[in-house]
């Protein structure tokens, strides 16, 4: 069952550019939806499964992006090494931060992660000699995978979709394993989890680091794909959007968060034509979905479909 879902998704993703060659909505929007989906899948491990909210996830996204940007533009570092460095930096910072920050609960945790995100953003804006300040850094070379340069839209689409499939695969494996069950136990009841021998502090630290690594990975890809980075891409709004994607898609569902990310990216592209009305519609839609489908789009819609199906069967019976 799990395999079927995964392969359907993979085939769908692979077919899109063949069916719609050179289509902006597939190539450019697809790439940014794919990056968002990687971020959402990673954040979902933390929020959906372990039940820990983060309103500062864009910070890790930014760390990956800026590490890649700085190392490749200032030190002519090969892109793969820069990417690895980004993962290490984000991972270490997440690890250091995890213990004190994950002791907090509910809104206090929301505040602390938000504050962390703001601090990192301020550093990006202010540390001009390193980060290029508000205008960011330009001229980041394309990703080079052992001699294969990712320099066309189609190649980027392929790389990012492969990365997304990898992220989904890792997430699915993790969730359905001893470690994943331990995480879900933390969300279910920290007391019971501890009494079954789960070091909940360690479990939370692990998942925080993992989701930071997902984010940094996406960040590094983002930097090479855009060929420039600026603090705008890593501010509070982005962090909030990421949380929205996860919740919109449905907490504790890997495909749900990926779908949430894709839906929100497309929504944004679609709403652009409404210009000044965009903001109002965006806000109203967010509220409506959360009020009428609190478990998220993915689950809400699939439940709705199932109910319809049952009704239909009943009618025909």
């Amino acid at each position, binding site marked *: 069952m799990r395999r079927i879902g995964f392969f359907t998704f993979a085939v769908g993703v692979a077919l899109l550019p063949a069916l719609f060659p050179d289509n902006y*909505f597939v*190539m450019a*929007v697809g790439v*940014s939806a794919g990056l968002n989906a990687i971020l959402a899948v990673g954040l979902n491990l933390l929020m959906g499964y372990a039940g820990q909210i983060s309103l500062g996830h864009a910070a890790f996204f930014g760390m990956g992006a800026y590490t890649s940007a700085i190392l490749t533009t200032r030190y002519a570092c090969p892109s793969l090494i820069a990417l690895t460095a980004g993962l290490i930096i984000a991972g270490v910072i997440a690890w250091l931060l995890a213990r004190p920050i994950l002791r907090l609960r509910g809104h206090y945790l929301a505040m602390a992660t938000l504050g962390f995100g703001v601090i990192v953003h301020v550093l990006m804006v202010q540390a001009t000699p390193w980060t290029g300040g*508000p*205008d960011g850094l330009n001229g980041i070379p394309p990703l080079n995978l052992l001699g294969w340069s990712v320099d066309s839209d189609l190649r980027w689409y392929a790389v990012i979709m492969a990365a997304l499939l990898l992220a989904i695969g890792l997430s699915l494996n993790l969730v359905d394993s001893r470690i994943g069950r331990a995480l879900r136990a933390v969300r279910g009841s920290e007391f019971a989890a501890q009494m079954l021998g789960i070091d909940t502090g360690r479990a939370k630290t692990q998942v925080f680091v993992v989701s930071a690594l997902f984010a940094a990975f996406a960040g590094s890809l983002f930097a090479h794909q855009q060929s420039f980075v600026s603090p705008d891409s890593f501010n509070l709004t982005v962090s909030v959007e990421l949380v929205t994607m996860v919740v919109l898609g449905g907490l504790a569902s890997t495909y749900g968060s990926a779908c949430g990310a894709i*839906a929100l990216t*497309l929504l944004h592209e679609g709403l*652009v034509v409404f210009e000044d009305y965009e903001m109002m519609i965006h806000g109203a839609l967010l509220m409506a979905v959360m009020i009428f489908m609190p478990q998220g789009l993915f689950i809400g819609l699939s439940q709705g479909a199932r109910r319809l199906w049952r009704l239909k069967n009943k009618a025909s019976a």
Partner: protein
Amino acid sequence: MKDYGWKIILAAALLAITSLAGAVEPIRIGSFLSVTGPASFLGDPELRTLQMVVKDINAKGGVKGRPLELIHYDTGGNAREALSFVKRLIQNDKVDLIIGGTTSGDSLAVIPEVEKAGIPFISLAGAVDIIEPVKKWVFKVAHTDRMAAAKIFEDLRKRGLTKVALITGDGGFDKSGREQLLKLAPEYGITFVADESYGNKDTDMTPQLTKIRSSDAEAIINFGFGQAPAIVTKNMKQLGINLPLYQSHGVASQTFIDLAGAAAEGVRLPAAALVVAEQLPSSDLQKPVLLAYKKQYEAQYGPVSTFGGHAYDGLMIAVAAMERAGDADKAKVRTEIEKTQGFIGTAGVFNMNPTDHMGLNLDAFKMVEVRNGAWKIVE
């Protein structure tokens, strides 16, 4: 939501088909502006101007018999959005030319994409880096921040002031301006005795100004745009600091005077001639252009701003180039834009060449001062 995307594509396709069948193919002008967000100050009048001028040109029969079609996206001042919209303009909307990039960040972010695609791009932002070094397909029509810095320093030199305190915001415009000021200061013998900054959404700058008050500054330069410079101006008066205050061309509009109120009296800044159009001598070449634009704009939208003027300049330069090229072929239009000579715009007289993709000189800026609630040219 996916359905929605397809509906748009379908609608666009239908539109394309009907327009093909019905009339001549329009020339597509793409634009991405910061109509919302912190730079909406600049982006909003730019968009209005483009819409106004396009309508005007189409009413007069278009360019070489083809109507103009404006396709516009709002970046909200976010460079990531800017890049994504430029891709959309090039790949999806298949535009012939791009005008836009309200902020330097937006403009700089899209340059690699524009160069790769080979499409003429006229930027409306200030940073020198946009055209230095020269990029084949990139032009710009707004004064650079370096010119603003030079103009301010010239004025300081005239007044015999050398010790200056600097206060800037944390946006791209502010930071880039600060860099140019610091870089250019030695040439004019200016020393900075204070260098403060603030967040563009901050509501109070008295701590920074208190520090400046205790320095031995003889004048203050505040480089920024939006509401923050107005707050700085008011806070200065509040703290009883009576030093000459220079603002940047970023606030050269009536809005600044409205916001800062009485505290704005005596504030100087370098501005395009548009803000003082009526005061120009009738011998001035720019005067008729300025008055015409101003009259037309104000009839539809209210007070003009110099930033809308940049959009006017950019579009008119592009149209002139297309007229000379005979069609909208990207390479030909690019070559013709580069050959722009003696074009009289709202920002000044443009003379471009292969090594200068802006073509304005320092005369394009006028030093103006607030007197009795209005901008006046300083002699």
